[in-house]
């Protein structure tokens, strides 16, 4: 794998204005969905992005493909800052990055024929004569495992998995370099999930794609990702190569997240002794100071509430494994309630 950086995120912030109740004299608050994220995506890799619902991962994804304009920070695509580019300026980049959506029912226009939907990229970018588009569409349908003769059907005639293939065909039509997959399999049956994941894997090999793969399902992310970034309340908690993250999670939140995945291997079950978090994630309207995880963290100390932890290598890790935690877990250290108490005592 080359280490060429395709996408560089620098302190990306995305805020949404929120109207608070009282219509007159109500304060207009700001919801910070993404609170300063720096990440890099390397050409040809799959970067998994995991976190709970509402942690800002979908917002971050939409900032990357510029469906949303970041409030602050930079998004560099192949070295060019596209964070504030206009519709016209984005044109050439639209061809190079695409998105696959979560809902295979919502992401296809129910009133349009599938062939026309998959042909959209060619039409929008004026590629190839109109007469050749049908053949191109049918080639794409074959490539993603759909019957090319079904190009005249409507989305309603297809199953969820087939629809997701249609969405994939549309996304790869222009041979993009980057595809942001926003929970692409979470709406599908488990058996269909595997088929779609394998298809994405094959397409990556064939077309040299780079994936930003978003999911709340850790087992799926582990299966597909080269590296994994864990997000909590708008910030990145930990980034590591896939294997390292699952074996040596440093951040208490990562550890808690991993322990919530049912393990089938008894050894693994012991390694990831159950850590139950109490409470709900705090409101992003009023995020905790310091480390955003500290109110729920069994290892939290005074420093955690005062100082924002940097995302840097901890506990002797290499530069590939960074953690935003003042008190990272050591190798093999468990995070039982006792241990937490002994630290805080």
């Amino acid at each position, binding site marked *: 794998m080359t280490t060429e950086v395709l996408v560089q995120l620098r302190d990306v912030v995305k805020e949404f204005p929120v109207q608070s109740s009282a219509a007159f004299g109500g304060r207009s608050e700001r919801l910070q969905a993404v609170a300063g994220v720096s990440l890099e995506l390397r050409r040809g890799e799959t970067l998994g992005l995991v976190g709970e619902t509402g942690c800002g991962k979908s917002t971050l994804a939409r900032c990357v493909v510029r*469906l949303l304009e970041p409030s602050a920070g930079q998004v560099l695509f192949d070295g060019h800052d596209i964070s504030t580019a206009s519709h016209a300026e984005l*044109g050439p980049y639209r061809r190079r990055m695409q998105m696959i959506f979560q809902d295979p029912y919502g992401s*296809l*226009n129910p*009133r349009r024929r599938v062939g026309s939907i998959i042909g*959209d990229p060619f039409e929008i970018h004026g590629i190839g004569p109109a007469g050749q588009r049908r053949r191109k569409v049918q080639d794409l349908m074959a490539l993603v495992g759909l019957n090319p003769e079904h190009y005249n*059907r409507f989305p309603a005639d297809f199953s969820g998995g087939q629809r997701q293939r249609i969405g994939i065909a*549309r996304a790869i039509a222009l041979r993009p370099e980057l595809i942001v997959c926003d929970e692409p399999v979470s709406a599908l049956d488990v058996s269909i999930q595997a088929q779609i994941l394998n298809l994405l894997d094959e397409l990556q090999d064939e077309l040299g794609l780079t994936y930003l793969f978003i999911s709340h399902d850790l087992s799926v992310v582990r299966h597909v990702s080269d590296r994994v970034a864990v997000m909590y309340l708008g910030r990145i908690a930990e980034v590591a190569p896939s294997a390292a993250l699952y074996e040596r999670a440093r951040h208490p939140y990562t550890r808690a997240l991993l322990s919530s995945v049912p393990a089938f291997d008894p050894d693994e079950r012991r390694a990831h002794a159950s850590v139950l978090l109490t409470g709900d994630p705090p409101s992003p309207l009023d995020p905790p100071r310091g480390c955003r995880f500290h109110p729920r963290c069994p290892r939290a100390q005074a420093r955690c509430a005062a100082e924002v932890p940097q995302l840097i290598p901890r506990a002797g890790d290499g530069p590939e494994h960074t953690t935003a935690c003042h008190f990272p877990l050591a190798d093999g250290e468990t995070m039982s309630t006792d241990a937490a108490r002994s630290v805080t005592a």
Partner: protein
Amino acid sequence: MSAAPPIRGRGPWELAFERLRRDRAAIASAITILFALAIALAAPLLAQLTGHSPIEQFTETGLSPTGIPVGPGREFWLGTDGLGRDVLVRIAYGTRVSLLVGVLASGLAVLIGAIVGIAAGWHGGAVDTLLSRFMDVVLSLPFLILALALAALVGPGLGVSIFLIAFFSWASVGRIVRAEARAIREREYVQAARALGAGSARIMFVEMLPVVSATVIVYATLLIPSSIAFEATLSFLGLGVPPPTPTWGNMLTDAMAYYKVAWWLLVFPGAALLGITYAFNVLGDSVRDALDPRHDQTIGAGRGGAG
């Protein structure tokens, strides 16, 4: 494999048409409307057949010696009016005006409403506020008073009627379409189109228009009867198509002077107006049910529906 016919999915429109074909109320109203259309087209033929032009006054045969209109009979099938004109032929010619105004005014209203509604819903923000407030203003205008004033100002006529009716009808369509467009804007397929680099025009017309068109078509069918009634009102008040061109509205005005002695002057044009507006309303309901099968709201008893 190449010899096999191409597989073609039945689209939402085809499925809706199937459902419509199984709906007896829809068929009955469609037949009524087609019958009215045939009458309108065949009006000159009817004039030839009876030998009565719609504006000719038969002072000899069409009026009693005391100048009273003649009732339905062999010579004048639906009787004559106060000037001795053939009511049947006049109703037939009046059908032309009613259908023309009804269809054109509703078409224009729906076109404007759809464009303004989609534009407001898609753009949001200041554009939405501006257009929405404008629609509110149009909806709150006392339309009859203003229509009368405007018609008086520019003079009555067919074109003026169509314009007036369209102007006072489009905003209700616009508001519905706007609400739907706002919901569609957040759908993932619109996001997908944006991610592909589609511009505003493409999103509005390729992604949004086909989805709101079901609503638009239902509204169009329901607007036609109200436009016909609106036209009749304008004509009744002398501000529609000017006499001697017969319209149902101005025939009813003429009837006011004679209805105590000549019931047919009131009953036949009134029945024509009632019949056609009722047929369009029933068809509109059926079209709505056919386009949205989940919306299972039938009117009256004995409706076949989709089941």
